[in-house]
């Protein structure tokens, strides 16, 4: 049960966490019921842990399906590599975000956390050069993005300025509120 930075080990750990949380919630609910609570009250009292168990179950499911789908997808080697990196990043990101759970319920030990952090950073480094390529692959039409920040041509500042010109306030150099409110106000304070 030594921790390894592999997808098999990670998937197993996600399921260990899910099982651990399901078990903890079930035991705590049982204890409450044995202590004299009605099943409904025991359920309500345990509901924070129940939601956490459910979330852990689903996260394990998503991680497994992501890794499984990527490994079975028939694509070129360069794309396969990127997809694998994405799946690993997803798994390691959520693992590190919930490392307390993994330290409690899986065979991850505190000494393994540094290695996981390094793995995450290495994945970010590997994926960095392909970040624009990956989002380009989503192939989203500029009219659908509808954002000066995200247009294909990257004319961010020009487009932001063009958008600002659509503000109705910019249709005239002086707004009537100046004459109606500000001018009298300013004079009254002179």
């Amino acid at each position, binding site marked *: 049960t030594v921790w390894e930075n592999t997808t098999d080990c990670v998937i197993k750990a996600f399921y260990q966490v899910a099982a651990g949380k399901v078990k903890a*919630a079930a035991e705590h609910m049982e204890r409450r019921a044995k202590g004299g609570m009605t099943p409904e009250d025991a359920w309500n009292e345990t509901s924070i842990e129940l939601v956490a168990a459910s979330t852990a179950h*689903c996260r394990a499911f998503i991680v497994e399906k992501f890794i499984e*789908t990527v490994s079975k997808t028939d694509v070129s080697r360069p*794309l396969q590599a990127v997809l694998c990196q994405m799946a690993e990043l997803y798994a390691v990101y959520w693992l590190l975000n919930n490392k307390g759970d993994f330290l409690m319920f899986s065979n991850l030990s505190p000494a393994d956390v540094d290695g996981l952090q390094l793995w995450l950073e290495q994945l970010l480094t590997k994926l960095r*050069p392909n970040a624009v390529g990956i989002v380009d692959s989503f192939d989203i039409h500029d009219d*659908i993005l509808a954002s000066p920040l995200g247009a294909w041509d990257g004319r961010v500042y020009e487009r932001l300025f063009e958008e600002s010109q659509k503000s109705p306030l910019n249709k005239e150099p002086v707004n009537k509120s100046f004459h109606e409110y500000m001018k009298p106000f300013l004079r009254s304070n002179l």
Partner: protein
Amino acid sequence: VNEDLVKERQNCSFNTLELTHLLDGGEAKTLERKEREEYFLSDPAFKDEVPMEYLSHQEQYEHSVRKACHMFRKLQEMPHGSMDNFRQLLGGMLGSAILKDGNPLALHYVMFLPTLAGQGTVEQQAYWISRAWNLEIVGTYAQTELGHGTFIRGLETTATYDPSTQEFVLNSPTLTAYKWWPGGLGHTANYAVVVAQLYTQGKCHGIHPFIVQLRDEETHMPMPGIIIGEIGAKLGMNTTNNGYLGFKQVRIPRENMLMKNNKVLEDGTYVKSPSDKLTYGTMMFVRVVICQDMASYLSKAVTIATRYSAVRHQSEMKPGAPEPQVLDYRTQQYKLLPSIASVFAMKFSANWIWEMYNVVNSELDQGDLERLPELHAVSCCLKALCTSDAASAVEIVRLACGGHGYMKSSNLPSTYGLVTAACTYEGENTVLLLQTARYLMKTWQQARSGQTLTPSVAYLNLYSDWRQPR
């Protein structure tokens, strides 16, 4: 094209078109999608002279109705109409490009028509679906009330059968019984499927669907006894025309109860259906669609933020060196790349559950109900996680764009509005997670007693006695 983006594209290690085809489901699907986008997006009728955010609430609604009518007219004129086109226009990215802040006619297609098809008898379908499909009437689906949402057994609206006139009498006994939230209900729809507690022969038989006329078909004035309007401005989706609806002893013919499953006979006798699996199927379908939509909206948000992060230069990483692309900062990568990965995670999980749904559905046809609870449990938690992850990720990537991400024109605020709404509709997330938890608790007991478990929970058998080595 910005030179940084040119360099980024030159340095990409894989063929982006290959990934596009993979995500679309093949080259032919990509072409089909692009044709569809061109067909709609090139139409000048969809262009806004003034951005919608500068219009009043009322003007925004009026523009949206105009665009929605034009959109569906075009859809009906399309040479190769398909369900995929509907999906893209109703919930997908294409629809949100045309109607950024919600479609007032969406519920007509998303809920009204499918409910007529799923819960109406053959005769009811023949009459109502043809009227709805030909746009003689516009409908919505009124279930949620001011005082009750996800817990539908708690709904208060009553439909009491009067055998002397063979009519149902609909009534809102309290203010909290008013229908609240249905899209298009405010000023758009003239009919609704209304979900109400059915009373006949002095007994309550639980919630059932009824077709109710809300407005006159010519004048659009509210019908007698119908109290109707729009609920007001919201965080997002402000052109969906979400409405309220109260009933003051509104009479409808007996034939207006959708009776494919359960029936009320002329004398008031209630006849219960042996199976309600069709209702279950619709629910599953909607949840898969929500997960796919979350992947789409998030893909839009990460595209905006990633391209911007490649173009934007900021600060000094090394003294005297030029300002680097913000994409080179580790913290920026940490915001963007896991969010990009989430798009794939959601997409692949949704595909998987859709396949599982089809398998379970074919098992159901043979009377095998064994995997139904498992499917229900997975779909509940998946909807909850996809929507909450998408909402968090859209906010993270908005922050990754600094002040410019706060601009409405960045399209990130309205994307957040669309995504965060999904955390609540079609089953509030915490309630859905507790539904999955209920299944997990039952399964846990089975695991403890050594029973064989279905695939998605088989791990409970493996790890039920597992302890961390100390």
